[in-house]
C-alpha cells in the first residue's frame, strides 16, 4: 500500500521539479541578442530593433534567403515607450544596442543632440529617395544623414460600420467622409452617436484624439528655437479644453491608449471611431482580430494630419556597421516599404513608392476591402505641414497625456489637471 503511493508522490515531485526548471530556463532565455556579432556557423548576425508593427517579418526572411553572409533577426518592443527606454539606456552605456535601431519621430530631436553616436548614412544611392521634409529632419546640423526614413503617418478615420448602422449613421466610406470635415463636425456626430448607442464610446482614447490634434499644431510645445511654450500656447490649451469637455460628454472610452483595457476594448465594442495613421491599421487588425465591420474613411478632421513615422539608424557602437547600413538601405528602399505597407499599413515616406501602382492598388480585406493605398496616399497629400518637435517634445507630451488621463479618471477636474500640467512643464525645465 505504502510503496505505490510514495512512488506516485515522487513522480509528481519530479514532474513539478522539471516544470520548475523549465520555467526558470524559459525566464532566463529571454535575452540573447547582445552577444558577439556572428552566429555559430560564422555568418555575421545583424539585429534590427523595432516597436509596434513595422511589417518587417517577411522582408527579413526574404533578405536572409537572398544572401549567405548575413543572418538578420528582429527584436520587437511592444510599445514605442519601451523601445525608447531601452535605446536611451544602451546608448548611455555605450554598448548593447542592436545593429539597426528604429527611432520614432517624436523623440528624434532629443537623440539628434547625440548624433555622434550614430553612423552617417549619407550615400549617393539614396539621395532624393524620401520626401524632402523627411530627409531634412534626419540631417544633423553638420550635414550628416542620421536615419533612413521608413514610414510616415498620414491619418484617416477608422470606424466600425456595423456600429454606425446601429446608430442610424451612414456606413459607406464616401458618405462617412462627408461627416468629418472639421473637429466640430466630428464631435457633433459623436454626440449624436453616443445618444443613440449609449454603451459605446465615440473614440478609443482621449489621449489619442489629443495627440492627433496636437500633431496639427505647427508649434505646439516648443517654438522654432526650441524654447518651451507649452504653458502659454493658446492652441495647446484649446486642445486640452476640447478633449476634456468631450470626455465629459461621454465621447471617450476614458481608457489609456496602449493599456490592457484599451486593447481589450477592441474586442468588446468599446468605441466606434479612431484617428488612424497608416501604421495603426496593423495595430487595429491585430487587436480586433475576428471583429467584423472595420472600415476607413478618406478624411481627417481639420484637413490632414501626420502622426508619427520612423527612421532606421545605425548606432556607431555596432560591430558590423557596414553590413547594417546595407541592410537599412535595402529595408527602406521603395519596393520593400511597399511590402511592409501591404503587411502592416506602414505608409511609405519614399517618393517613388507614392505613385507606384503596387501601393495605390493595395486594398485591405479586413477594412471591408477599402483601397487603403489610395486613401492614405491622398491623406498624405492633405498634410499641410509637419509639426515641429524639439528635444523636449516627448517629455512634455507625456505630461500632457497624463493630465488628460487624470481628467478621464476623475482624479482631477479639468482646471486642476491643467494647473498640474503647468507645474510638470515647469519641472521639466
Amino acid at each position, binding site marked *: 500500500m505504502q510503496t505505490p503511493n510514495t512512488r506516485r508522490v515522487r513522480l509528481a515531485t519530479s514532474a*513539478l521539479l522539471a*516544470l520548475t526548471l523549465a520555467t526558470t530556463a524559459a525566464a532566463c532565455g529571454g535575452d540573447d541578442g547582445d552577444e558577439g556579432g556572428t552566429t555559430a556557423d560564422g555568418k555575421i548576425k545583424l539585429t534590427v530593433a523595432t516597436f509596434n508593427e513595422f511589417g518587417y517579418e517577411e522582408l527579413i526572411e526574404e533578405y536572409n534567403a537572398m544572401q549567405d553572409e548575413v543572418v538578420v533577426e528582429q527584436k520587437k518592443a511592444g510599445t514605442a515607450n519601451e523601445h525608447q527606454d531601452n535605446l536611451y539606456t544602451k546608448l548611455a552605456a555605450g554598448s548593447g544596442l542592436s545593429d539597426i535601431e528604429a527611432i520614432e519621430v517624436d523623440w528624434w530631436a532629443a537623440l539628434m543632440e*547625440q548624433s555622434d553616436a550614430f553612423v552617417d548614412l549619407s550615400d549617393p544611392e539614396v539621395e532624393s529617395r524620401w520626401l524632402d521634409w523627411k530627409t531634412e529632419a534626419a540631417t544633423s546640423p553638420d550635414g550628416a544623414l542620421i536615419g533612413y526614413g521608413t514610414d510616415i503617418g498620414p491619418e484617416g478615420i477608422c470606424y466600425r460600420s456595423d456600429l454606425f448602422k446601429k446608430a442610424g449613421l451612414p456606413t459607406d466610406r464616401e458618405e462617412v467622409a462627408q461627416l468629418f470635415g472639421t473637429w466640430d463636425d466630428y464631435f457633433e456626430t459623436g454626440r449624436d452617436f453616443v445618444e443613440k448607442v449609449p454603451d459605446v464610446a465615440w473614440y478609443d482614447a482621449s489621449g489619442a484624439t489629443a495627440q492627433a490634434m496636437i500633431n496639427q499644431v505647427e508649434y505646439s510645445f516648443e517654438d522654432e528655437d526650441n524654447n518651451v511654450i507649452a504653458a502659454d500656447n493658446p492652441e495647446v490649451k484649446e486642445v486640452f479644453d476640447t478633449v476634456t469637455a468631450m470626455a465629459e460628454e461621454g465621447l471617450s472610452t476614458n481608457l*489609456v491608449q496602449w493599456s490592457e483595457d484599451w486593447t481589450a*476594448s477592441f474586442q468588446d465594442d468599446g468605441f466606434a471611431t479612431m484617428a488612424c495613421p497608416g501604421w495603426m491599421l496593423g495595430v487595429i487588425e491585430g487587436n480586433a482580430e475576428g471583429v467584423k465591420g472595420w472600415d476607413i474613411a478618406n478624411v481627417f478632421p481639420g484637413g490632414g494630419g501626420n502622426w508619427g513615422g520612423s527612421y532606421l539608424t545605425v548606432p556607431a557602437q555596432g560591430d558590423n556597421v557596414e553590413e547594417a547600413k546595407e541592410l537599412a538601405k535595402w529595408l527602406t528602399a521603395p519596393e520593400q516599404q511597399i511590402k511592409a505597407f501591404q503587411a502592416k499599413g506602414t505608409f511609405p515616406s519614399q517618393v517613388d513608392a507614392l505613385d507606384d501602382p503596387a501601393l495605390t492598388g493595395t486594398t485591405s480585406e479586413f477594412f471591408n476591402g477599402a483601397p487603403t493605398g489610395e486613401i492614405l496616399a491622398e491623406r498624405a497629400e492633405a498634410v499641410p505641414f509637419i509639426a515641429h518637435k524639439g528635444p523636449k517634445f516627448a517629455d512634455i507630451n*507625456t505630461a500632457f497625456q*497624463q493630465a488628460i488621463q487624470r481628467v478621464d479618471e476623475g*482624479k482631477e477636474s479639468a482646471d486642476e489637471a491643467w494647473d498640474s500640467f503647468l507645474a510638470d512643464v515647469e519641472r*521639466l525645465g
Partner: protein
Amino acid sequence: MKAGSTAVKPVGDAGSPVSPTGGRPDIEGVRRAAWRQRLSRLDTLVSPYVFVSPFFLLFVVVGMFPLAYTAWVSVHDWGLLAGRGDFAGADNYRRVLEDRYFWNALRNTISIFLLSSIPQVLIALGLAGLLDTQLRARGLWRMSVLLPFVVAPAAVALIFGNVFGDRYGLANEVVQAIGLDPIRWHVDTLASHLAIASMVNWRWTGYNALIFLAAMQAVPRDVYESAALDGAGRIRQFVSMTVPMIRPTVLFVVITSTIGGLQIFAEPRLFDTQGLGGSDRQYQTLTMYLWELGWRVRDLGMASAVAWLLFLIIIIFALVNLLVSRRAGTLRGQR
C-alpha cells in the same frame, strides 16, 4: 631505529648546556621554533579572513564601488547621454527634496511596502507551520510554494495586469459577480497599491515560507511532545514555541523583505503603459522615480541623489526593524 635516533639528536644538542660552541645552533633552533609558533598563531588569526576575503573583494567591486561612484555622480551635473558636467555640490539633493514627486514616491513606497511585507511575513509563517506538519506528499507541497518565485517578474506583471484590468479584468468580474461596484485598480491609490502588493506577495511568500520552514525543522521535536503533554494545542504551540524559537530567522526575513520591499520596481513599473506609476503617479515608487529622473528626464545626477537617499532610508528602516524585533523578542522571552 636509525631515523629515530637522528631525530632525537638535535633535541639533545639543543638541550645540552655543556658545549660552548653549541650555543649558536641552539639559539637558531629556538628561533626557528618561535618563528613556526608565530606563523601558526598568525595562521589561526589570519586564515579565516583570507578564506572569506573573496566575498569582500567582490563586494568592494560590485557593492562599494558603485556606491561610491553613485555618490560622486550625485554631486555633479550629469546627463544620461551628455555625461559629466560641472560640480554641483548638494544641489541635486536639494532639487530632489524640493520635488513634490519625491515625497509622493516615498509615501507610495512605504504604503506598498507595508501592504506587501506584513501580510507576506505572516502568511509565510503560517504556511511554513502547515508545511512543517506530517503532510502527505510533503515534497510536492513544499516545492509548489516556491513555484511563483521562479516565474519572471515581467510575466507576473503581465498576468496580473490582465487580472486587475479596470474594465475587462478577471478580478473585477469576480467583484461584480458578488454584486459590488468594479474597483478601479489602475486609478485609485489604495486599490492600485493593493494590486501591486498582491503581485509582490504572490512572488515572495512561498520563498519566505521555505526559509521559515528550514528554521522550524531545527526546533527539537521533544519540546513539542512535552508541550502536548502539558495540554498545549497546535496553535498555542505554534505561537508560543515555534515562532519565538525561530526568532533569528524571522528577524532575517523581516530585514530582507524590508530591503526588497523598499526597492519594488518591476511590478509597479509594468502596471501602466507610461511607466510613471499612473496618471497622478499614484503608484510611482522611489525606484521608479529614480528611473524616471535618470532615463526619462535624463538627469543622472539627480537620479544618483535619489539612489543615495533611498540607501539612507533603507538603513533607517532596517535599524528600526532590528530594534523593534529585538524588543518584541525580549519582551516575549521575559514573559
